[in-house]
């Protein structure tokens, strides 16, 4: 029976490793990474850099630049320029030897171990890292749709949407009402809507529009860093921000992109200056179509390895996966990518593996020199990634501590983007 390379590799991989890496002695093993965000860029860099050329790594990403969603609220609030949240992939190729495939991944053939690109090219892999981020559920808010995302932008994916939110904010008149519809769990960046509301209030106040109001209609009864946010909103912005949980607003009945009206079970907001709809979310399409997530859901992973429970050759990172107690954040994705990279290298090159551990911190800016944070340390336990230590900013902390926390936030951004992209 003739054995082609693929068959040989497959049988080699099927043999349990006895201290020896499964594919040593084969042609250079191939890793394909789908998605150049916080998870994918980190995984591609770490696998390529630490394997020192022993593994061929291809990063599939259709965009030439990457706009971080983290710190996009600081752009919206006027604390950062748009250029400051843009990054390029050049260093991953030039410094670490990652091959960049500038195309959209259209399908994953897990039986043949191939990724299909929009260009028609097919990339074979020995291990695949899937880090596609989220897709929006356009039908989760009555009256809202893909077509309505210009009139009522979400700003929950990078690029034009982020800029639209900033433009719409800048156009709000004094006395105008912004309605933000905040999503149900689980979603990208749990404190994000509340940091964004803070940035709305900051920008409006700074522009002399202190009579404007921001109403948050939340799908949840509670939210991340709630006590600190609520206390700080009162302290910095008086009554500008009003948060309403579902028991109070009684659900979103409808939104109308033509009139900018929002109707809840309790009241109607007419002629809003700006309606920011942040809808419910799910794993990116390519992960769902590859059978790594159920319809409308996220991808289940092995907490010790970040491998998909559906396929031992596939790793799922970041917002697309179910990471137990870890929130969907860039920091989480970066942390998960390092565990996946370690496991991939260990399997393909025989490098040493260590027990998986994860870390996350989410900083949120509330006003100038006032940031709060939440985070924790995580380990595989009881079949999930479980928190072993957690911390959260408390209301009433000193101005000095809050200023220091914002200095950390700024420095963290510099460090983690360097860790991902340079």
């Amino acid at each position: 029976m003739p054995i082609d390379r693929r068959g040989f590799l497959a049988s080699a991989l099927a043999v349990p490793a006895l201290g020896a890496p499964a594919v040593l002695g084969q042609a250079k093993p191939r890793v394909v990474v789908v998605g150049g965000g916080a998870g994918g860029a980190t995984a591609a860099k770490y696998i390529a850099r630490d394997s020192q050329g022993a593994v061929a790594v291809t990063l599939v990403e259709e965009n030439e630049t990457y706009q971080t969603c983290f710190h996009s609220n600081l752009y919206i609030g006027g604390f950062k320029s748009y250029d400051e949240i843009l990054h390029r992939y050049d260093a991953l190729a030039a410094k670490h030897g990652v091959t960049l495939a500038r195309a959209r991944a259209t399908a994953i053939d897990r039986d043949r171990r191939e990724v299909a690109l929009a260009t028609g090219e097919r990339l074979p892999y020995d291990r695949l890292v899937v880090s596609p981020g989220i897709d929006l559920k356009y039908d989760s808010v009555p009256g809202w749709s893909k077509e309505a995302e210009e009139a009522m932008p979400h700003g929950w994916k990078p690029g034009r949407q982020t800029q639209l939110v900033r433009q719409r904010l800048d156009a709000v008149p004094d006395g105008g009402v912004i309605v933000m519809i905040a999503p149900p769990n689980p979603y990208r960046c749990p404190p994000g809507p509340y940091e964004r509301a803070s940035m709305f209030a900051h920008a409006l106040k700074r522009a002399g529009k202190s009579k404007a109001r921001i109403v948050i209609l939340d799908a949840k009864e509670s939210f991340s860093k709630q006590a600190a946010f609520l206390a700080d909103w009162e302290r910095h912005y008086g009554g500008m921000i009003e948060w309403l949980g579902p028991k109070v607003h009684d659900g979103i009945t409808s939104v109308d992109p033509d009139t900018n009206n929002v109707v809840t079970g309790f009241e109607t907001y007419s002629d809003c200056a700006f309606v920011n709809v942040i809808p419910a979310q799910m794993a990116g399409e390519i992960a769902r179509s590859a059978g790594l997530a159920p319809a409308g859901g996220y991808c289940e992973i092995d907490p010790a390895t970040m491998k998909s429970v559906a396929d031992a050759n596939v790793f799922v990172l970041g917002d697309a996966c179910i990471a137990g107690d870890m929130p969907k954040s860039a920091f989480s994705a970066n942390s998960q990518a390092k565990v996946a990279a370690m496991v991939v290298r260990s399997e393909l090159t025989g490098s040493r593996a260590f027990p998986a551990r994860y870390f996350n911190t989410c900083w949120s800016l509330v006003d100038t020199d006032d940031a709060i944070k939440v985070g924790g340390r995580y380990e595989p336990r009881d079949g999930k990634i479980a928190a072993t230590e957690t911390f959260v900013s408390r209301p009433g902390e000193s101005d000095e501590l809050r200023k220091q926390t914002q200095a950390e936030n700024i420095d963290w951004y510099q460090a983690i983007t360097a860790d991902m992209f340079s």
Partner: protein
Amino acid sequence: MKDAITKDLRPVLRRTALVALSTLLAFATQAAAAADWELGQHLASECVACHQASGRRLEGIPAIVGLPTDQFVALMDAYSRKQRENTVMQAIASRLSPDEIEALAAYYGSLKAAD
């Protein structure tokens, strides 16, 4: 008979045991030295999410590249006992074993900050 053999073999056994022990110790020491640095390098992948790998000094998060080993250990000890403020570092330090802190200290101590 059994006693005689045992008696005759005793010096040999002792010598063999000593050789084995010293060989084992040599291997263990080498392994520990190598493992420590490798473990430190691995654990450091968590640190670089906040502390710049370049060692560049910033305002809010201190540079740790090239930090003397004993100072590194003392700082982590202070964080783990919550004698130093910073909830992020307290959460990190309290979950690291003394061996892991030593490994990290050895790794960071061996690096040189870029100018």
